[in-house]
């Protein structure tokens, strides 16, 4: 049986990297949120902020663990599945990954120990500092990783000798043309996504009448954050799109479903792009709107997919739909921020059932938008792995297709179990709520944040410790 190793390697990488990005996106935002809560606690001394910080730290711990273990996989997959790409680009983007490990990975992984386990061991200022360092570490990590990715989109500062890229100017390599906007776009997305989760959790508690005071704080902070960052994200996204039009016009053509340079200018709201027929079925378009968005003029023209031969076009339908999902969610969040701010201004933020119900379902939208955005940018780069320099098909390892398929099945199986369980446990922690950590700490204080959840779980399931697996536990309880 013959397998297409290129396609399999792409599916495997897309699968592992898609799973991975969910967790860093969340932990970038959540570590910053916990740090803000701790700073507020230090300044005001209000126990509410302490309680909330501990609550979100528990959720952070589970997400971070999943982010770390799925991230380690990636640093090896470049070599296992994309060895020719590793060799081609190692001189240039290898050091960026190296700097990521040294400036960010160690910082977050090491101070995480204090952030998670230091609650009863270090003074509050040090705990806050550790959280801040973790937050800085996660954002620094994004800096280097996005720099490396951006170089693959818009390579600069290098020369090619003997089929391998060599560095000429490190500043040009790191700050390559698409990097600053990509970084701004991704960090804003991470903060926005986290705000949507906080909003949903707060709304869920208010609807249920639980932890009301904490829930109101969450709701206020989240609405404020979304009100500011969602419109900002639209602005950054627009700039990023213009940048892409300049450097990767075929990606924009696929995003817009724009097949023909001559007829460009109308903005396709909906359609079903057909790669083989080179047109959109059931197209609904607004004349001149495309020119306005992309050229900021009434009848500007921009390149269509017909500028390049068919084999050099990205998969149009995937990019086209993913782009619409991302933008749609962006607009939804802008509307959410406006509605929330209006209700807050009218003093009805906590008493408007439709808004709370709606907000309680918003938790996944940020993640979906982030995945959709990455689908746009990565598939929009095809058929190139490093834009204009190395085709995806030329970047893979000399590994038999059967090995790639076998490990792909294993990845799907393992990630399915581990991450579904992780999300289930996060939900369980949310159901337990903030009270479990701050107010009702078990006797002797928990030795780690999650051990509080353990007590709560035992109460919830109505089991005494002795009913659990391992009869020996009984002795421990008796001993106490």
């Amino acid at each position, binding site marked *: 049986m013959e397998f297409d190793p290129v396609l399999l390697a792409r599916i495997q990488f897309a699968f592992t990297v898609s799973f991975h990005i969910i967790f860093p996106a969340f932990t970038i935002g959540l570590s910053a949120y916990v740090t803000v809560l701790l700073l507020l606690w230090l300044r005001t001394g209000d126990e509410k902020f302490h309680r909330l910080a501990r609550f979100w730290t528990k959720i952070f711990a589970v997400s971070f663990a999943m982010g770390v273990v799925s991230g*380690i996989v990636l640093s090896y997959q470049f070599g296992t599945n994309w060895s020719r790409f590793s060799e081609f680009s190692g001189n240039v983007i290898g050091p960026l990954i190296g700097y990521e490990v*040294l400036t960010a990975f160690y910082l977050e992984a090491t101070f995480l120990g204090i952030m998670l386990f230091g609650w009863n061991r270090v003074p509050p200022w040090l705990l806050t500092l550790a959280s801040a360092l973790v937050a800085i570490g996660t954002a620094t990590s994004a800096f280097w990783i996005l720099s490396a990715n951006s170089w693959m989109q818009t390579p600069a500062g290098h020369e090619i000798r003997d089929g391998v890229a060599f560095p000429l100017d490190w500043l040009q390599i790191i700050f390559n043309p698409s990097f600053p906007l990509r970084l701004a776009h991704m960090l804003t997305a991470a903060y926005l996504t986290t705000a949507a989760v906080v909003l949903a959790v707060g709304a869920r508690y208010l609807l249920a009448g639980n932890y009301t005071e904490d829930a109101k704080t969450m709701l206020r902070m989240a609405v404020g954050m979304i009100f500011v960052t969602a419109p900002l994200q639209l602005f950054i996204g627009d700039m990023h799109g213009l940048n892409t039009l300049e450097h990767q016009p075929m990606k924009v053509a696929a995003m817009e479903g724009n097949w023909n340079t001559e007829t460009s200018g109308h903005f396709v709201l909906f359609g079903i792009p057909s790669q083989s027929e080179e047109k959109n079925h059931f197209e609904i378009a607004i004349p001149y709107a495309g020119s306005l968005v992309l050229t900021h003029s009434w009848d500007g023209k921009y390149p269509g997919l017909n500028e390049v031969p068919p084999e050099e076009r990205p998969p149009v339908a995937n990019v086209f739909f993913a782009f619409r999902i991302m933008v749609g969610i962006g607009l939804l969040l802008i509307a959410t921020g406006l509605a929330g701010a209006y209700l807050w201004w009218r003093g009805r933020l906590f008493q408007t059932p439709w808004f709370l119900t709606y907000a309680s379902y918003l938790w996944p939208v940020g993640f979906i938008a982030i995945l959709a955005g990455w689908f746009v940018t990565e598939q929009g780069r095809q058929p190139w792995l490093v834009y204009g320099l190395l085709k995806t098909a030329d970047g893979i390892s000399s590994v038999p297709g059967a090995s790639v398929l076998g490990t792909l099945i294993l990845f799907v199986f393992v990630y399915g179990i581990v991450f579904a369980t992780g999300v289930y446990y996060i939900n369980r922690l949310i159901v337990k709520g903030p009270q479990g950590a701050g107010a009702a700490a078990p006797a002797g204080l928990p030795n780690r944040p999650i051990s509080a959840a353990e007590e709560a779980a035992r109460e919830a399931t109505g089991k005494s410790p002795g009913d659990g697996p391992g009869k020996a536990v009984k002795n421990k309880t008796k001993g106490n």
Partner: protein
Amino acid sequence: MEWYLPVIWAGLIGTAVALYVLLDGFDLGIGILFPFTKKEADRDVMMNSVAPFWDGNETWLVLGGGGLWVAFPKAYAVIMPAMYLPIIGMLLALIFRGVSFEFRWVAKPNHRWWDIAFAGGSTVAAFLQGVILGALIQGINVVDGQYGGGAFDWLTPFSILTGLAVVAGYGLLGATWLIMRTKGPARALGQRMAPQLLLLMLAGMGIVSLWTPLSVDRIAERWFSLPNFYFLWPIPLVTALLAFFVWRWLQHPKSHDALPFMGTIGLFLLGYAGLVISTAPYLVPPHLTFWDTAAAPESQIFMLIGTLFLLPMVLGYTAFVYWTFRGKVAPGEGYH
């Protein structure tokens, strides 16, 4: 410049790998020892004794892999496809045991599966690391600068032996860590397991030391030709002496808390030195050396400048975190 940069980088990556082996070794060892007690309270103490450190420890694995790509992209591009299956197997095993640190506590009281995931993940990861080591020592088939072998070339009796030896070695690090850092039943478990694991690890080291020079002429020549032999004979002698002392310390555990752990670290470093002597300057034996596979000098310098500042910082705050969580973990206490 052209000559010594790759040597510096080989030294740095060698150091990162050694630190990884020692640091993640003891926390993987905790997982390897998990099946030897059934008590939840003991397992809690064992896990608590490494919980604040494991994440930082595992980062050395990322530096080892990432650093190899940065400094020796051609070696990275050959070794990774050659070790495709064991590397991905190891990563999947590390996923199971990594998330167990959090999941096990959230899942309580239904945490049995995460006990299994923690123990199984740790053991499989350790075993496959040993297999990769053994396969690397035996050599990789390189054709036109690419991996030229099959999917299962790494699987040999020798690599299975090194895999088992690493499991025993990590188990010994874990057991001596328990002696040093815990009280009560967890410490007793460490005392019970350590002597057997020491013997197993020494047996592994002994067989590897005989097998490699007998099967590879290059390694025999490295050790037994003159004048090399005059300089190298103390290494096995010191190893044997240190092993004897660790054995003695383990017989009198009351008075020796930290010595068995420190002695085990010494044994690991001696064994590691022996492997370096056998294989240097080959990074992909028997074809590619440090110099064959090095990145462009400008890339190695750019990374080296940052590393000279950042690595001491990393070591500094790693030491700070270890100092913050110093002292013994007792049953039912954890970190207060």
